[in-house]
């Protein structure tokens, strides 16, 4: 059609979109999991209200990730989504319970415990499902021609279980960081403690995944350990160790925002690590970003609007965060 190649810019947009989802809904889901460990109704109310005004916008990045994948890389969408049939089903239904719990819990006093459980288990199961999807994605799927040719339970492997658990700790860390930022006194002290536990889990998970992935795949091993890659890429693990240490200090000290920023840093570094391992594959072992891309006509049509709309979205979403800035107040939100 024309010589312009929009694949790099769409790779960036999609990559950024997924990363935003992971960070933003990550802290929501993390808060949802920590919610279960809050001692009383007052602290639960406060914890829920720390995310009530923003969770909906955060979950929207998941929708954008899905439909942008369909628009920009339809072949990847058509292979990956059916390959993840059951984890996606479980994630979506868990997100239903997580999402309606905000409204229902405050308005349906008779079944409050039920919606409390829906909020906690919904957050936990959705996180676990997302982590397992990540693991299954890294390992790759059986593909014939343009279709997924494996079975419905192919996603279930020891590696994907590991990445599922890893993400539970990861989102827990983000959630704890957010709660430190948004709460005070006893709830904040709890959040700091839970954050340290999650950080320990995250560090262990990063180490295990970083060893497992290259040992399981020659291509990934060469990517990281061949010369001179090993030298060029060595800042990634070094930076990860430094950020983990700084996060630990921030959670244990008096910093209000350090824990959350540190958690974001760890996610960014892990994300970069996965990108280094897999690039330029969008369907690992089968299709590259270029091969799975929609035609330039499609990518250009969507790009025109996206380049205008994304900054606008970031602006007003930022404004909405700004309205609810500061420590969460008992009188703002559901009560």
């Amino acid at each position, binding site marked *: 059609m024309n010589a312009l190649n929009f694949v790099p810019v769409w790779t960036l947009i999609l990559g950024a979109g997924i990363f935003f989802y992971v960070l933003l809904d990550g802290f929501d889901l993390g808060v949802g999991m920590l919610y279960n460990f809050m001692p009383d109704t007052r602290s639960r109310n406060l914890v829920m209200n720390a995310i009530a*005004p*923003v969770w*909906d*916008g955060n*979950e*929207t990045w*998941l*929708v*954008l990730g*899905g*439909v*942008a994948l*369909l*628009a*920009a890389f*339809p*072949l990847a*969408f*058509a*292979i990956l*989504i*059916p*390959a993840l*049939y*059951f984890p*996606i*089903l479980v994630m*979506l239904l868990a*997100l*239903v*319970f*997580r999402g*309606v719990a*905000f*409204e*229902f819990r405050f*308005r349906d006093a008779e*079944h409050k415990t039920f919606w409390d459980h829906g909020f906690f288990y919904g957050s936990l199961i959705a996180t676990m499902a997302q982590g397992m999807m990540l693991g299954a994605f890294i390992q790759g799927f059986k593909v014939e021609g343009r*279709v*997924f*040719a*494996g079975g419905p339970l192919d996603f279930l492997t020891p590696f994907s279980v590991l990445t599922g658990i890893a993400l539970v700790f990861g989102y827990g860390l983000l959630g704890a960081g957010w709660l430190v930022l948004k709460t005070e006194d006893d709830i904040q002290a709890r959040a700091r403690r839970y954050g340290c536990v999650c950080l320990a889990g995250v560090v262990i998970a990063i180490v295990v995944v970083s060893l497992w992935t290259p040992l399981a795949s020659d291509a990934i091993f060469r990517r990281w350990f061949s010369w001179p890659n090993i030298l060029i890429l060595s800042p990634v693990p070094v930076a990860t160790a430094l950020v983990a240490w700084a996060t630990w200090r921030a959670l244990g000290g008096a910093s209000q925002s350090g824990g959350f920023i540190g958690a974001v840093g760890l996610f960014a570094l892990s994300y970069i690590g996965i990108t280094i391992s897999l690039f330029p594959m969008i369907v690992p072992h089968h299709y590259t970003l270029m091969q799975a891309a*929609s*035609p330039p*006509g*499609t990518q250009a*049509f*969507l790009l025109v*609007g996206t380049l205008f709309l*994304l900054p606008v*979205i970031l602006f*007003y979403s930022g404004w*909405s965060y700004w*309205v*609810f*800035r500061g420590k969460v*107040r008992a*009188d*703002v*939100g559901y009560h």
Partner: protein
Amino acid sequence: MDLDPVLLSRLQFAWVIGWHILLPAFTVGMASYIAILEGMHLVTGRSVYLRISMYWIRIFSVAFGVGVVTGVIMPFQIGTNWSRYADTAGNVLGPLFAYEALTAFFLEAAFLGVLLFGRKLVPPWAHFVAALMIASGTLFSSFWILSANSWMQTPAGYEIVDGRFFPKDWFAIVFNPSFPFRLTHTVTGFFVTTGFVVVAVAAWLMRKGRSVEEGRVMLSMTLWLLTFLVPLQIFLGDQHGLNTAAHQPAKVAAIEARWDTQPSFPLTLFAIPDPANETNRYAIEVPYLGSLILTHSLDGEIKGLKEFKPEDRPPVAIPFFAFRIMVGIGFLMLAVVAASWWLRYRGRLFDSPWFFWLCMAMGPLGFIAVLAGWTTTEVGRQPWTVYGMLRTADSMSPSLVGGDVLVSLLAYMVVYLIIYPSAVLIAAGLVRKGPALAPETVAPIESGRPSAPINIELVQEGKTL
């Protein structure tokens, strides 16, 4: 295994979208209603508008919450169960779905938090803007999703390369032949649905003698709106029907259960369609009326179902009956609106118990009409996902077997049967509570006449947080 994954996937899609569409049917209209109420309050300073708005915002937030979580499920259905369709049509339809998320979902989500929780944190005008943005978001969303749906009904602006759709002309794709009709007919239907819910609740409040001022404002305002919208909707439906007759003749033949092509054909009011024998049983018909409605002439003709190969025909009975339910409700609504004119003329709009009962009975009918209309157009499109181009049976994810889909369908059924009754009970509880007598929370802002000093103080309080 005997389970047919295509049929089960279709049932699953019908299940999740059927439940989901009930929420936009309410929230699209309600978002605009709330924006109007907030605007009226800002301009006139009358607190009754604020009380009504706050009442509906609570109910809206329950519906919107369920709408969000069931809406997130929808795009993934395209991938999990219909991946062949995603691969074949993604080049064309993907951007339409993506634009829906970019123009609508973020807008709604970001400003919903401010609408629900921000009244104390932002100035009144900003709160109104939040309501306005949510209303705009619901309309942008309708625009894109109905454009995508219309393209599947009347595809245009594409070329086919290697068996897949490629875009050629984006204007033709977005504004495909059935889109203007589907968009206006659907959105008006959503507004009418919301209107009758408001009328029903207002009638209930007035019959109980509670919140009479709010009830009067709601009833009068909404019946004026319906005075325009219901006749408009019937006109738009007629235009949509002519458009369908031009572009999807098999669908119209099924809707009218016409087996033979004939001029001056009757309108079949009732029949039991008998596809095996290609005829209708127990038919009650009005001569010439079919021609008059569908071709706007007494001797016009439409293609009968026998002109289409059996494998290209949609089911007949489902669109036939669903269409009649929709149209029947439409005329019932017109009758109620006409009754309201008479009562208004006689000055009895606010003290006629029988009319209150009638209004209350009408409350849920909009939802049934929307579902019936949706069923008509979607079942009438069969056996195609992209009309005339891509068969439903060729759209499914090839990796699926019947057992997988049965499991997911049952899971969706169980979850929706927990969520929806809960939402209805909670919303009913909020309706029963009625509008707050005195505006909740901060009186100075919410009494309708925000006095400047207190207002500024609150804004500053927000800033110091």
